[in-house]
């Protein structure tokens, strides 16, 4: 007799970890003490990151969409991650691919737009479809899904991270945290192996490359440096093979069929045949996979004949890509102040690390046999699931901590198109810094602030993140006004900027107009479109979200009151208690705005209490370290005694 699993209807929502990959995506959660990936009804864990659009009927995501990509190349989006957070004119849109792009109309946000089945979609919307499919998969397994940790390449810039978060919002997922893919992988490995030391994570996926150097010390995963390329991965290997195939076919037909040659040589995205491009790219991918085992492979390109490729030629083709990753690895080591010899291990992540030439190359740069014993396709999602569990207050919350960094320097444009770096790359997050500037001209009444990200000296060579203007400064002689700009990067790696003119006190928290991204209004509109009944649904969703938030805060406040009653001042307990009761009442009602207002009231009532708790936590952390030090010196002294006795 087999036992059926019975779902507990009151079971709390389960947190999940999502790896939103270029080629495949997956979702995992912690079952018992171990993370497991969730399989679909065909026992498949990997969901191809492919989204097919139709003139009518629902959008299709995953394997079925992938199978149809060859027939409907324009309406089927693969590798959408490569387009996240990019402008409509990004070079990525000009690489070999079957899509049709639309330029944004004046006033529309500057983001990539695909033309699919007679409409326009942005990469954020396409990604939201993948996330929605993963959420459904998780719901089938877990019934109630809580918050999600979603992974992003470590080298993703601010716009790409923001786009990922927007996609999650659109898919109705609460984002507990965005974490970096290599760090997630290290978390999965670190907890499995329980070994302290310094590690490099080499993560070559379908479309992105990251390298991260981190130290694991008693549960703290501290990232020392990171580097990468958010447009380098297995897709680029496929393109190189595809170019090779095109060249072979061209040679085969050059003497006999002019029309075929004409099709084969059209490289311009506007004129090339999308079916042929898709066919060749798919064949290229299959050949790449087969070359992991075989020394030579062949493929049939329907209507054009057979093509061949040896492993040797393939390795020759991809060597420049590998060398690009090698240069990045060297820089990451240098940024961490380390040499390859100092590393205790190298972890391989991402499907592209299955290519034997990649493994051999990694071994050469780091002078070590790399570890790949956790499935490189799953390890990131497994780590994300562990982190989701920790953030939801389960598991080894006291021991484990991820300390990550920003991958690219953040700065603002100053005179002459030069970048003034405010936060350098590899700064531990959350972080913040402040810089002061002044006016260049007499009676200048506004400051234009241009936020950029990148390592180069000139603004033109960096990535523009946002522009905003601080207005209303009274006329003053040049050099007198003082503009204080504050950058803050949160634990998701997302930047917010504040600017203040200090002589007048005029302040502006940036309503950042992203250079390449959707503003809040655009996301809101998409959200309305996505829901069947627009505003009504949106209100219900807000109500549900605010109720969850209200209960969470009530629970946390109660816990704090129970634990630290000693820190309360006379009358404070009653004030907080009254605010809690008011919030509880509001959460029973139907008005999301009211719940929000009562949350803010409770926040105000408990603000000082929270501050006292914080100060005590700090004192304890510093004190704890002193106790440790004392213990260590005692130990040391004993060691000395022992040595004396031996004599």
């Amino acid at each position, binding site marked *: 007799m087999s036992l059926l699993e019975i779902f507990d209807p009151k079971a709390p929502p389960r947190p999940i970890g999502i790896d939103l990959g270029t080629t495949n995506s997956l979702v995992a959660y912690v079952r018992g003490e171990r993370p497991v990936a969730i399989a679909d009804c065909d026992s498949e864990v990997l969901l191809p990151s492919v989204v097919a659009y139709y003139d009518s009927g629902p959008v299709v995501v995953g394997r079925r969409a992938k199978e149809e990509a060859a027939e409907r190349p324009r309406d089927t989006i693969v590798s959408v991650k490569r387009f996240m957070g990019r402008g409509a004119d990004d070079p990525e849109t000009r690489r070999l691919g079957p899509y049709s792009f639309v330029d944004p109309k004046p006033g529309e946000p500057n983001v990539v737009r695909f033309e699919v089945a007679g409409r326009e979609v942005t990469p954020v919307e396409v990604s939201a479809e993948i996330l929605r499919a993963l959420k459904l998969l998780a719901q089938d397994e877990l019934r109630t899904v809580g918050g999600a940790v979603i992974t992003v390449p470590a080298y993703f810039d601010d716009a790409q991270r923001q786009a990922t978060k927007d996609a999650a919002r659109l898919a109705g997922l609460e984002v507990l945290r965005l974490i970096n893919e290599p760090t997630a992988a290290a978390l999965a490995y670190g907890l499995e192996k329980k070994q302290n030391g310094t590690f490099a994570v080499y993560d070559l996926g379908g479309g992105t490359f990251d390298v991260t150097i981190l130290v694991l010390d008693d549960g703290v995963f501290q990232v020392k440096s990171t580097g990468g390329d958010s447009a380098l991965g297995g897709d680029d290997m496929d393109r190189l093979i595809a170019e090779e195939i095109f060249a072979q076919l061209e040679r085969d037909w050059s003497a006999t069929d002019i029309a075929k040659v004409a099709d084969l040589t059209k490289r311009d995205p506007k004129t090339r045949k999308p079916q042929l491009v898709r066919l060749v790219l798919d064949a290229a991918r299959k050949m790449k996979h087969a070359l992991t085992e075989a020394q030579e492979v062949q493929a049939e390109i329907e209507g054009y004949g057979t093509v061949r490729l040896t492993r040797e030629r393939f390795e020759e083709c991809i060597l420049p890509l590998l060398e690009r990753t090698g240069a990045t690895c*060297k820089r990451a080591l240098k940024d961490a102040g380390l040499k390859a010899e100092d590393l205790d291990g190298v972890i391989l992540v991402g499907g592209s690390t299955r290519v034997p030439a990649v493994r051999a190359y990694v071994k050469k740069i780091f002078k070590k046999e790399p570890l790949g014993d956790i499935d490189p396709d799953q390890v990131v999602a497994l780590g994300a699931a562990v982190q989701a569990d920790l953030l939801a207050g389960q598991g080894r919350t006291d021991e484990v901590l991820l300390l990550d960094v920003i991958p690219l320097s953040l700065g603002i444009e100053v005179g002459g198109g030069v970048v003034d770096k405010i936060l350098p790359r590899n700064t531990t997050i959350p972080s913040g810094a402040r810089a002061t500037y002044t006016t260049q001209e007499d009676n200048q009444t506004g400051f234009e602030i241009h936020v950029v990200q990148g390592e180069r000296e000139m603004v033109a060579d960096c990535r523009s993140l946002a522009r905003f203007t601080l207005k209303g400064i009274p006329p003053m002689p040049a050099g007198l006004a003082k503009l204080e700009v504050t950058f803050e990067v949160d*634990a998701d790696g997302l930047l917010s900027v504040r600017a203040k003119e200090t002589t007048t006190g005029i302040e502006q928290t940036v309503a950042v107009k992203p250079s390449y991204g959707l503003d809040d209004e655009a996301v809101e509109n998409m959200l309305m479109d996505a829901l069947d009944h627009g505003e009504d649904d949106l209100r219900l969703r807000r109500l549900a979200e605010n109720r969850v938030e209200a209960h969470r805060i009530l629970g946390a406040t109660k816990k704090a009151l129970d634990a630290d009653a000693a820190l309360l001042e006379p009358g404070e307990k009653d004030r907080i208690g009254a605010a809690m009761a008011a919030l509880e009442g509001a959460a029973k009602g139907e008005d999301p705005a009211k719940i929000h207002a009562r949350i803010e009231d409770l*926040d105000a009532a408990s603000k000082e209490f*929270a*501050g006292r708790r*914080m100060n005590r936590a700090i004192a304890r952390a510093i004190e704890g370290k002193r106790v*440790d030090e004392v213990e260590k010196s005692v130990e040391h002294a004993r060691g000395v005694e022992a040595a004396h006795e031996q004599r």
Partner: protein
Amino acid sequence: MDPFATLGVERKFDVDLAALEKTHRELSRALHPDKFVAAPPGERRAALEKAVQVNESWRTLRDPIRRAEALFSLYGIAVGETNEPKASPEFLMEVMERREELAEARARKDLAAVKKMAEEMAARSGEAERALADGFARGDYASVLPRLGELRFYKRFLEEVSAIEEE
């Protein structure tokens, strides 16, 4: 903001970096936003603010130049290239010569010479750091202020060397 106070360590130049890193880690364990996901928004914000301060303090103290700048500022001595006294003509002269030598070695692709110069500069950077530590310990701040400018020069020089090695 006093980074020494934030991290709870004695105000001096020759800090124990290993101990400081440990303190940073312990404070992060207590304050990191990951530990406050379920906390009320006020507490979450307060923790975030403190975590940012702790990280900024750690970033300041682990870099000798930023650490010296912080100390001078705390002792009421303005820093920044326009506030500090001009470097001596001898030092400036030497700086120019060194830069030229480096540029020549770069042109000849003489990596051995570049490496030798880098080692020498690193040694002198270490000397300047020791002088700063002594000056701060004696309370004789103003007299060691020029050493800060020297440190910046050595750092830029070593960055250039890095760029050459990457070529």
